[in-house]
């Protein structure tokens, strides 16, 4: 989840800017400049541009979208699942796994990725799916705290491995 902390969607005069795209707004001529490094310190981000004044932008914390709220409510309900919730020996997800999945949904909500499905698994894992047309992303928050991501283009599996936020965002846009 460290990678998520390095990406903060910021609101400046020109509108919303995703820092993973490495853009920043200059305060002098209201232009958008590509920029290699943006320092994010807690709630403030300071951007330095050669030949311009220092600008400060404040991170905005948005309310979760309706879709994200719907998925967060579903996740919260998973915490009430009993042992053997499927009558075939399934374990309920632990609070820690639910919390990790909730944080993931909340933080990625800023990027308006298309949430599609969420479900608890037989071992206490949580499955989350995003879908944009033919592009699908399957995220597994496993019971051993291992996290995995699988990407599809149509029926072709094009990535399977650790969660990669850049890849995920680019795949779903």
């Amino acid at each position, binding site marked *: 989840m460290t990678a998520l902390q390095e990406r903060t969607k910021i609101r400046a005069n020109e509108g919303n800017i995703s820092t993973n795209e490495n853009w920043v707004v200059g305060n002098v001529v209201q232009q958008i400049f590509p920029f290699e490094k943006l320092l994010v310190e807690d709630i403030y981000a300071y951007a330095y541009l050669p030949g311009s004044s220092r600008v400060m932008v404040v991170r905005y914390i948005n309310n979760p979208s309706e879709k994200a709220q719907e998925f967060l409510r579903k996740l919260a309900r998973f915490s009430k699942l009993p042992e053997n919730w*499927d*009558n075939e020996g399934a374990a309920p997800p632990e609070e820690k796994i639910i919390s990790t999945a909730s944080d993931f949904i909340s933080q990625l909500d800023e990027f308006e990725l298309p949430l599609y499905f969420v479900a608890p698994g*037989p071992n206490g894992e949580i499955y989350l*799916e995003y879908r944009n047309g033919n592009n699908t992303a*399957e995220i597994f928050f496993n019971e051993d705290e291992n996290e995995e991501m*699988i990407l*599809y283009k149509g029926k072709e599996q094009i990535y*399977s491995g650790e969660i990669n936020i850049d890849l995920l965002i680019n795949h779903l846009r």
Partner: protein
Amino acid sequence: MNNTIQEIKNDDRLLRRVKLEHIRDDMTAIPLAFKLRKKIGETGLSVYIERLTDYAKTIRDVTLYRLYILSAGQIRDIGLDCMHKPEPDDYSHSEIIGSITSSVSSKLAKAAVYIKYP
């Protein structure tokens, strides 16, 4: 009880019972429907040879499950195998065996086709 082990040929069709919680609105199954239950020591995914059973018996409870089908050939193409393992109450019972990672579960789910029953 008939204990004769049958060879599963590539064109044999195998039924998998899937819980409603693991089915999308478009009736495709999600990968969790093909995960091993580690906590109860499952070593293979239970499936049922179509030619040795019927849908009513395999689905058990239509309020909880739906049926999906895969050919043995599809399963072997993914790098897994399937073996006939009769159970006392179900001669058609078989197992998908091999290294069932999340990626493999996902491929099985993609290959599985929904059977409109009931």
